[in-house]
């Protein structure tokens, strides 16, 4: 790791922004009655942050249902994201997508995705674009431990390997798929062990340590950019809250386990790693956190003040050019 001071502070800023987005945005979304399918990535900030710090604006990522962190780390504006969660017309998806579909093509963000595993081949396809058009871009497919057991991952890893595509498969192993522990559902101790069956490097890293994630991703990205093909990175991490706001995680995991992981909070680990070196001060980090908090205040305000979409907009963007009339032909709509 040869990160400069500014880059190091940026890592913290990204993590703090994600944390505050989740801590503030999710309850606020709930209060506005839109929390049906919103998943907090609090606890997992180091993964999105460490990986995306290796990417440029032109690189691509495919994300999951738990994707706010990926969005923020890839540069999507949290204010716009908040508007999207609130169902406002100013969201990047104009209120059509919500938490599980936030996307920003201008940032190479190919969407959070509500179907587990479904975004993986999209990232592979983006990597194919890069290869065919010789763009030098890489793509990252984020997915969970639960997603590791979806067939499409297996197919995608094989395909990416056969075609030597510049793609990084990044598993966020947070120990659970809903209430199902990865120890139960995964027939291998480490998802990374499966990499070998696809002739690609596989590594398991501490997903609470943003520097460890950064380093692993740096290697994989370098390999991809060099045209040497895909890699698999498994990040061991933890979600601090339930699967959504509707479940109580203590019905399926222990307080001790939660405490253990809370003690390894990535923001805390960051402070513990960085402050002793003397280069960066606690006050600086506190300020970054305060700024992140303030940004969320702004974001909530922006979202609340943004207009809702017009009901008739529901007919737009199904196809590129298409008359609204045909989409409602004969179904007796009111708008």
């Amino acid at each position, binding site marked *: 790791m040869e990160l400069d001071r500014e880059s190091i502070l940026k890592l913290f800023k990204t993590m703090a922004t994600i944390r505050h987005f989740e801590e503030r945005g999710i309850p606020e979304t709930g209060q506005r*009655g*839109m929390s*049906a*399918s919103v998943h907090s990535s609090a606890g997992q900030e180091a993964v999105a942050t460490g990986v995306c710090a290796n990417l440029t604006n032109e690189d691509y990522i495919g994300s999951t249902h738990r994707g706010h962190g990926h969005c923020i780390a890839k540069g999507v504006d949290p204010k716009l994201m908040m508007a*999207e969660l609130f*169902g*406002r*017309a100013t969201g990047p*998806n104009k*209120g*059509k*997508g*919500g938490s*599980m*579909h936030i996307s920003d093509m201008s940032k190479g963000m190919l969407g959070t*995705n*509500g*179907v*587990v*595993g*479904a975004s993986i081949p999209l990232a592979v396809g983006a990597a194919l674009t890069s290869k065919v058009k010789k763009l030098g871009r890489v793509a990252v497919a984020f997915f969970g431990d*639960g*997603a590791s*057991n*979806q*067939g*499409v991952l297996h197919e995608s890893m094989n395909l990416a390997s056969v075609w030597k595509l510049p793609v990084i498969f990044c598993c966020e192993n947070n120990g659970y*798929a*809903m*209430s*199902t*522990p990865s120890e*139960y*559902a*995964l027939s291998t101790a480490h998802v990374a062990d499966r990499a070998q069956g696809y002739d690609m490097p596989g590594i398991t890293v501490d997903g609470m340590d943003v520097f460890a994630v950064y380093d692993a991703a740096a290697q994989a990205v370098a390999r991809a950019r060099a045209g040497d093909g895909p890699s698999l990175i498994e990040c061991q991490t933890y979600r601090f809250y339930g699967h959504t706001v509707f*479940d*109580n995680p*203590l*019905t*399926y*995991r*222990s307080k001790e386990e939660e405490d253990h992981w809370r003690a390894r909070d990535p923001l805390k680990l960051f402070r513990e790693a960085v402050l002793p070196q003397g280069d960066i001060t606690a006050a600086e980090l506190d300020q970054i956190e305060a700024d992140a908090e303030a940004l969320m205040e702004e974001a909530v305000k922006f979202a609340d003040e943004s207009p*809702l*979409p*017009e*009901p008739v*907009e*529901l*007919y737009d963007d*199904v196809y590129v050019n298409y008359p609204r009339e*045909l*989409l*409602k*032909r*004969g*179904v*007796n*709509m*009111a*708008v």
Partner: protein
Amino acid sequence: MTITNQTAGQLAGMHATGTREIQVREAINECLRQEMELDENVIIMGEEIAGGAGRQDQGVEDAWGGPFRTTVGLIQQFGKERVLDTPLSEAAFIGAAIGASSTGLRAVAELMFVDFIGVCMDQLVNNAAKMRYMFGGQVKVPFTMMTRIGAGFGAAAQHSESYYSIFSHFPGLKGVVPSDAYTAKGLLAAAIRDDDPVVYFEHKGLYGSVGPVPEEPYVLPLGKARTVREGTDITLVGISKMTWVCTAAAEELAKEGISCEVIDLLSVSPIDYDHINESVLKTHRLVVVDEDTPICSMASEICSRVAEEVFDYLDAPPSRVTAPHTPVPYSRAMENEYMPNESRVKTTVRNLMNR
């Protein structure tokens, strides 16, 4: 006539004794418990079916017991061999449930939301639906797939669909769409006991709905619709939750002097064409209210069959109130207009009456 859950139950031939008011969620749970008690070949599997409760030995106290708590308590009663949490691998476990059902078990598998059918549809379409046929009748596949439909929760385009029509399209499958606690229990029992593969569609918006349900096990027939409100001017066919949109509209239209007959479809395969035709022979008008998108839909199917089979009796075009041909939007501002509602049904009925 106002339709309460009570009268809906009576219309469907409610049992007199041992009947309590319970939620759809509870009715489903009770049915699963009873069917598992009655037949040791019944097993159930899916994501979160046991949930945390599968690990009581590890000091885990309570459990999800299904993402909507429809399977709560089953693992305690029937153990891990018959109540199986699965990895997130629908093609494998739904395929395995089909394989198990063709070799002596009566497996129930849950697909968490019907929106995800695309990850495992091959197993359903090319194995479950066709095995008996391709095998020349050598095998029975008493497999039940439970899944969820329905918009209205701000869950956007991948968690809100009502894809029953595509299942109806495939020969070899059956499908049911219960609309209240009574039908939820009786049709689930029917699905499980039936020797063919049946898809059971639960509407997310009905779980909390309370209605009278007999304590003892009972079976409602597959392939039968029911009339939940009698009328003379127009026939409204509702599917799942849309049945109650129809009855609510009917009630208000009654005040305007329009008498609607409301049919609760209950089964999307086989479809009870005769029941619908009979009503149209009386009313001469039809509106199908379907939460799904319109093209090649259940609404198309019913309208086309009525148009063909009772053509000479129709006084107005067979019509539909459905979602438009678009994915489900996230923002409530749009989603509220997307779903069929009372007001759209009323307007459509009025227009047909005034032609």
